[in-house]
């Protein structure tokens, strides 16, 4: 326990150093606005991927409606800052809570489904959310919610990303998290052991949804606009791709997936004709040779690094 805390502190320290370096480079204008935007996008995608990973990777429920929750967060947050002039932090909380409540309400009935059925239900759900928004004139309907101030910046995104990662990491290592993992491994066995599987599925779903809402609020407050076209099922698939690419059930895998895919997409922006082709080919090759994702369900952690450099080996997970 003590060792874990120490490790957490060390990681947090590293994160702060990393933040200081990037922020310094940003302020010195060495990282231009284009890459700044993509770094912010990476942060938002990490939150999305990590929260989807909690549902898909750790609890083993196949959800593909994440864009819907993101949309709820984006719009609720935008309404709070634009229409009610509330501070940004309240909007962030509001976006997360709203998405979480929706996740809870929807999770209760749908999580009784499993496998393909749940996938279809969540896919439909994401679309329902998007189309509902499309038909609410109060938030701009089909033309999108405009005039959102850019309140999110690298600092916000970075620390919320770190918060998300620590939250989910600690959740996974708690008894609740282990209950979730046991559901993934064998639902019947978990139930036999006295785990209330529906409760834990709904818990994971709700938490995943609320972090997606948080990411949505950041998203709309960085890009000045919340538009239904940004939250189609293609976005859900993007997030899913990040998770699967990085490795289902690996925290660092989700982070790796989010970072890689966002930067690849950005780097290929100069070759519009080939962008989607290269992107897709790299995914196909990866899935052919590494179907479990880049990291599988392993984690990159300090102890592995230590082991590689000849230090003591401590079992992870």
């Amino acid at each position, binding site marked *: 326990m003590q060792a874990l805390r120490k490790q957490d502190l060390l990681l947090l320290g590293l994160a702060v150093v990393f933040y200081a370096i990037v922020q310094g480079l940003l302020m010195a204008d060495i990282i231009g606005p284009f890459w700044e935007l993509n770094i912010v996008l990476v942060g938002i995608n990490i939150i999305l991927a990590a929260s989807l990973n909690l549902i898909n990777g750790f609890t083993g429920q196949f959800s593909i409606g994440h864009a819907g929750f993101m949309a709820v967060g984006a719009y609720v947050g935008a309404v709070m800052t634009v229409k009610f002039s509330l501070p940004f932090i309240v909007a962030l909380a509001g976006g997360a809570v709203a998405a979480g409540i929706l996740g809870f309400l929807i999770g209760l009935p749908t999580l009784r489904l499993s496998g393909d059925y749940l996938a279809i239900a969540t896919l439909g759900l994401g679309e329902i959310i998007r189309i509902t928004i499309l038909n609410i004139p109060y938030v701009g309907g089909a*033309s999108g919610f405009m005039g959102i101030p*850019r309140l999110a910046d690298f600092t916000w995104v970075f620390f919320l990303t770190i918060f998300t990662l620590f939250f989910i990491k600690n959740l996974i290592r708690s008894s609740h998290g282990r209950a979730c993992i046991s559901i993934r491994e064998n639902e019947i066995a978990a139930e036999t052991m006295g785990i209330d599987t529906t409760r834990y599925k709904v818990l994971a779903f709700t938490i995943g949804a609320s972090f997606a809402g948080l990411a949505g609020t950041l998203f709309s407050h960085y*890009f000045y606009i919340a*538009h239904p076209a*940004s939250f189609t099922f293609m976005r859900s698939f993007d997030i899913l791709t990040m998770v699967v690419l990085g490795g289902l059930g690996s925290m660092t895998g989700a982070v790796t997936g989010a970072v890689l895919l966002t930067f690849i997409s950005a780097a290929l*922006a100069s070759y519009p004709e080939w962008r989607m082709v290269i992107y897709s080919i790299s995914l196909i090759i990866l899935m052919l040779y*590494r179907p479990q994702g880049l990291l599988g369900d392993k984690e990159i952690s300090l102890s592995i690094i230590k082991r590689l450099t000849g230090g003591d080996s401590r079992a992870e997970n």
Partner: protein
Amino acid sequence: MGKNWKKWLGATLAVAMSATLLVGCGGEKKAATSNEIKIGGNFELTGNVANYGQSTMNGVKLAIKEVNEKGGVNGKKINLIVADNKSEPAEAANATTKLITQDKVVAVIGPVTSSSLIATAQIATDKKIPVLTPTATSPKVTFDNGKVREMIFRSCFIDPFQGEVMARFAANSMKVKTAAIYVDNSSDYSKGLAEVFRNAFTKLGGQIVAEEAFLQKDTDFKSAITKLKASNPDVIFIPAYYQEVGMIVKQAREMGVTIPLIGTDGWDSPKLAEIASGAALNNTFFSNHYSSEDKDPRIQAFVAAYKKEYNQNPDALAVLGYDGALMMIDALKRAGSEEPKKIQEALAATKNLQVATGVLTLDDKHNPVKSAVIIEMKDGKQTFKEKVNP
């Protein structure tokens, strides 16, 4: 061994994928003193409305190619740097940021759709780089919250104008007294047009006798058509997109509605005739940016050049892209420099510019005053009916 081999391949792939990142970072872009002018093009090349983006880009490229062949602008060639925005507002913001900060363009053409353009507007304003959209028709693109967006320009007419054009066409050319409106409630484009048409038509002495609504992706319109038919209008105004319009027209004709049906540029697609099955479309009219049947020599020259370059008929977006590029080129010529501020001023002062679809003058809201055409459908073919000047 076999397992190891896979592991290494995985690692190599990861490295290869990371390496693609460096492609974007690497290579400092040339300074602005070279003998070319860099213009950004932010288009919908993939995603939902990829066909719009592609057509528009073709038009823009054609205009730039023509001017470069004639020696360029002020002795410099124009270099169009294209970025794809995947038909998504956030990606559009990303693309414009890239064009402005990485490629150091002096002005941007695009995006095509209003929402994507609005997502980029703030970035362009912050960086003080003028943006010209050849196609975004929402009034909010250039004018928002009671203020003109200083850096944003467009070269096509705005939505409400078409509503007025059709109201005038109905009242003056068709000389009808009563009209019904059948609106697509899921699109702002449709709702906006319906409102303008209602006001303009009433002002011209006409009367709106019925209004019904549908949603995109609906397939059965019979009950609404029955109601519209019962109110006995002289004409039905359907400001919507071709997909639904095709089915509405077909079902209306099947139900014995023979009165003229009129609409707007959302009707413009070869698919319309396919969906409605040709003859049903007789006695329908819609407003558009141009008609390839227009005998105007400028239009014919453009159509010929476009066919030669791309081996296909230009649609409205292609000609709008072409016009947009002409407007940008004209501004660059008059600015006489590559300073974004000068280009912005020159764009704002665009006056009596001859473009393919007519003469274009920018008003104080950065919206062009230019003519529209009315298209009549005859046996599934678009024919040029008349030109409506503002």
